[in-house]
Every structure is written in C-alpha cells, then in structure tokens.
C-alpha cells in the first residue's frame, strides 16, 4: 500500500493555496497594478529558491462524511528563500484573502510576529516582510467570543525588537497598511514603499473622518509624499513593485547576514588609485556657492556603488551605503544644495543611519560641509538642539572606525557631530576646509564688541579683526598643529581612504556580535 491517496490530497490542497483568494479577488488585486504575494516573492527571491512553509494552514470546511468542501488559506505566505545567493526569511500578507487580516491559529504563520520572525532569529538570517495588510479586524471578537488586549498571543513585538539587534530586517509597504502591519513596517532597519499603491498610517481615512470630520484620500494621509518625503516614517520610495524588489536586493547586498558576520566584499574592479581631477575644482572658492555633494562622493567611492538611504527626507544630510575597494562603508555627507544646515529631520536621519552602520560593523565616512544647526524660532520649537545633540550622542556611542573628510565648513555643535571622538579622531581636510566654534563673519562682532565700538572707525576695525582671524583659520595652520590629522589634495581622497579601510577589516572582525548600549539618549 502506498500513501498515494494522501499525497494526491496534499497536492490538491496545495493547489487551493496557490489560488490565493480566488480568481475574482486576484483579478481585482491585479487591476490595481499589484502582484499577488506569491508573484512578489517569486520576483524578489533568486529564481526557484522559495521553499514555502505552512502552505496548508488555513480555514477548512468539511461535509458530514469528513470530505473537504472548502479551504481559505491563511492570509500570510512565507518561508525560506535566497536573495543574492544568501538565505533570507521572507513573507507577506495575501491581500486577496480578507485584505490580509489574520486571526486565530493562522497568526502563528507570520505577518504579526510568529514563525517567520522566529526563523530569522533562530537561523540568524535577514527578514524580508512584504506588507500588504490592514491589521486587526473587529470580526475577531465575533469569532473568539471575547476581545483581546493588544500584544496578546502571537502578535507581540518582543521578537521584532530582538531582531533589530541581530539580523537585517527589511520591510516593504506594498498596499494600504494600518495597525499592526504598520508597526511591523517601522520595526525594520530599512523600509521602502511603492508609490501609488502603498500607503501607511496609524489609522485610515474612515477613522480620521470620524475623529476629526476631515475627509482625506488615503494618499493624502499616508502616501509616499507624507510617509516618506515629509515624515520619514518609511525610508525609500519605489516607482513600482519591480523597482521595490531591485532596491531590496540592493540594500541587502550591503548587509551581513547577521551581527556575527562582516558585510560582504564585492569588488567591481574600480582601481583604488583612481584620482578624479574634477575633485580639485568641485568646491567653489566662494563659500556662498553650493555644489553637488552626491557627485563629489560618487567620484570617490567604488563606481556605481552609492545607494542612498532616505534620499527624499531630511535632505540637508545625505546618508548612503557604498563600497571602497569592495568593502562596505556608510556615507554621511552634508548637502550644500539645500544649505547643508542640520535641521531636526536631518539629525534624526543621521542618528538612525549611524546606528544602522554601527550595528552591522560598517565603517563611516563623514563628508563635512556643515555651517551648524538650523537656528530660528520654528527650529527651536522642533527641538533642534535635542535632536542635534542626540545625533551626536549616537555617534559618540558608535564603535565602528570612522573618518571625517572636511570638505568645507565644519562648525559648532553640528560640526562636532561629524567628528569621531571614540577612536582615532581621524580628520582629513581638503584645502577648502574651514572650521571653528562658529564662522568668523558671524562671531567677530559678538567677541570683540567693546573693541569695535570704541574704535574711531568701528566698521574698519571689524574688518581688520576679521582679516586677522581669517589668516589664522588657514587649514595649513591647523595641520601644522596636528589638530587635523591630514590636509590632502582632494584627488587623493579615494586611495587614501581605501588603504585605511582595507587595513581596518581585522578590527571590524574583532568586534562582531550584538552591541549592548548603556545610557539614556538625550
């Protein structure tokens, strides 16, 4: 006797699960320009690498003789797959089934914690969560016969919290997302949202209308303009689902599998000694003039290796992953194209990125052209001082090697947030560099008020003092005093940094593992 009858039954049930929410629901879903969760996983993972777990989980109905009459799969598809040849735990809500809302025993499958998060944790592999669900439903009470306290059963966040200190976690908002799935989207090292079809909020338009009488389209409430560009709730925008998958693969290519491994080295054959002449003239001689910092950084790092994190939020600072001679580095760079002054958003962005790099042993290169913190009533009301100091505190706790390239300005509290004080305190300046507590122009009047006021020609005396101080502000003087470690030809930046980054790999290997931080962030 073989088990063929049971094997046939298994195949039949698997086929039922493959059908998602049925022909009609799938057609409706596709009409919105969305792939099904199964298609998404297939498109994102390495070809043929997806090994599904729990395909048979769901709600079955039987007739009196015990024959299966119907089956509704659990609305979360998950399992093990490979991305860039490396294993990942991957899953996503099936929106075609009950709008991806989970309840009862099928919750253990994932989406709100559960098996998929445990798999990432136990095996120390990255987690990729393709979010397209609306969270809880009041129907649960009807099914259970009682209401539950948030965090009950499988949907606690303990595991999600653990994961953030252990393995890379990526979330993609691929549909309208509220409640629990929204929370999962935030509990990630990096998140992305698909333009047009993705929205995220604490609660959707009907709830907002009930609370405040304000009628909003879901895009106005939680589309990419709000959630990504304005709030920074989600990090990056994808133009469409395909772009979303490409960006996820790209992000993971910079990440180690877990905190016990170093990020993967990938050499594109870009020569270490490539010295770009453009770097000698990219910074304008007038410090009033802006220039393209992204282009500047792009000339230094490995060809085409720059991948920006949060490119549309807090634009005063650029944060990006990149490679130097194949080794992964984190880039923090002032953005003079928007003034470069640190505002609360840029501070938040810089702090988060610093922590990401520190967690995964990615050394930092900080390109400074920072005039200071954003001043003014609005900025103070937004807590610029606290946010700015917090970014600096986070940098102070980081234990990855870092380099500061002082491209132009480096002033005050914000400038200090670009300087490593824990390690070598390695500061490499370009001849265009200038630094201090505050720019000479702004500081002379305050520091020499008495002397200026009592002079026969106050304006002339102010100019004299300014000229005198400006002479002292020459970067050569600071280099003589070894108060910067080096002053270099901008063209040498790539070979200079590559040699040090190659050399510090052993140091990185000596500090692998989880990082526990003491203290209270300001």
């Amino acid at each position, binding site marked *: 006797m073989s088990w063929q009858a049971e094997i046939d039954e298994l195949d039949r049930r698997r086929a039922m699960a493959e059908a998602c929410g049925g022909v009609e629901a799938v057609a409706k879903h596709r009409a919105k320009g969305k792939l099904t969760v199964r298609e998404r996983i297939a498109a994102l993972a390495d070809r043929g690498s997806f090994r599904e777990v729990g395909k048979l989980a769901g709600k079955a109905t039987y007739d009196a003789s015990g024959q299966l009459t119907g089956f509704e799969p659990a609305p979360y598809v998950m399992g093990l797959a490979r991305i860039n040849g490396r294993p990942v735990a991957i899953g996503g809500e099936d929106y075609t089934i009950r709008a991806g809302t989970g309840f009862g025993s099928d919750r253990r499958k994932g989406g709100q914690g559960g098996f998929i998060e445990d798999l990432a944790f136990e095996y120390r592999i990255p987690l990729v969560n393709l979010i397209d669900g609306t969270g809880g439903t009041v129907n649960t009470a009807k099914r259970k016969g009682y209401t539950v306290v948030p965090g009950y059963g499988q949907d606690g966040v303990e595991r999600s919290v653990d994961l953030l200190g252990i393995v890379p976690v990526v979330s993609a908002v691929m549909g309208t997302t509220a409640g629990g799935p929204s929370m999962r989207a935030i509990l990630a090292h990096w998140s992305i949202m698909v333009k047009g079809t993705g929205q995220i909020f604490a609660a959707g338009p009907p709830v907002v209308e009930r609370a405040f009488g304000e009628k909003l389209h879901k895009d106005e409430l939680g589309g990419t303009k709000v959630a990504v560009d304005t709030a920074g709730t989600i990090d990056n925008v994808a133009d469409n689902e395909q772009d979303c998958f490409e960006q996820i693969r790209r992000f993971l290519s910079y990440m180690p599998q877990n905190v016990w491994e170093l990020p993967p080295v990938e050499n594109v054959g870009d020569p270490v000694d490539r010295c770009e002449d453009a770097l000698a003239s990219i910074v304008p001689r007038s410090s*009033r*003039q*802006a220039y*393209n910092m992204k282009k500047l950084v792009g000339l230094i790092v490995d060809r085409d290796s720059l991948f920006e994190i949060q490119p549309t939020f807090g*634009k005063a600072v650029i944060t990006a992953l990149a490679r130097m001679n194949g080794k992964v580095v984190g880039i923090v760079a002032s953005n*003079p*194209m*928007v*003034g*470069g002054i640190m505002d609360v958003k840029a501070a938040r962005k810089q702090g988060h990125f610093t922590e990401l790099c520190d967690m995964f042993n990615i050394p930092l290169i900080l390109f400074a052209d920072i005039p200071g913190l954003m001043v003014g009533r609005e900025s103070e009301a937004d807590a610029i001082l606290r946010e700015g100091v917090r970014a600096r505190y986070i940098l102070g706790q980081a234990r990855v090697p870092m380099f500061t390239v002082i491209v132009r300005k480096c002033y005050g509290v914000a400038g200090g947030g670009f300087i490593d004080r824990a390690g070598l305190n390695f500061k490499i300046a370009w001849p265009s560099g200038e630094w201090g507590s505050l720019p000479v122009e702004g500081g002379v009047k305050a520091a020499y008020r008495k002397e200026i006021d009592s002079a026969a020609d106050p304006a002339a005396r102010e100019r004299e003092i300014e000229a005198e101080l400006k002479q002292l502000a020459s970067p050569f003087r600071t280099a003589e005093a070894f108060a910067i470690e080096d002053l270099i030809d901008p063209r040498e930046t790539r070979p200079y940094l590559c040699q040090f980054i190659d050399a510090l790999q052993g140091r990185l290997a000596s500090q692998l593992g989880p990082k526990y931080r003491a203290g209270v962030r300001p």
Partner: protein
Amino acid sequence: MARIEVKSEITGTVWQLKAQPGDKVEGGDVLIVIESMKMEIPVITEDGGTVKEILVKEKDPVAEGQVVAIIEE
C-alpha cells in the same frame, strides 16, 4: 514633446536667472540661482531640451518643491 517641470529644492529668494525661454540646455545646466540661508543654491535641470518657460523673476520668493521652469525635450 515631453514637458518637464523643474523644481526648486529649497525655500528662498530668486537671486539670478541663468536661462531664458528659448535657450537650449543640457542636463546638469543651472537655470536659476536661489538665495537661501546666505547660500547660492542652483536650480539644475536633470534633462536637456529647450527652456519653454521661466516661471519666476529675480527677488521672487520660492517654496521648496515649487515649479520654477519648464523644459521641453
């Protein structure tokens, strides 16, 4: 012909117009210079083409994201 909107990345005041309607421009060219926070911030077109319209004049205030020029490819 594709109509491309060029936006200011920053809130500030128009300081200089570097291009006029009818000018041929290339990707990377500066169309307008905005003065903001004592800095001169260029508005750069990413695409080449012909300047169809410049929607601001010198000393005009501009907001972040405001369309300041139209290019036709």
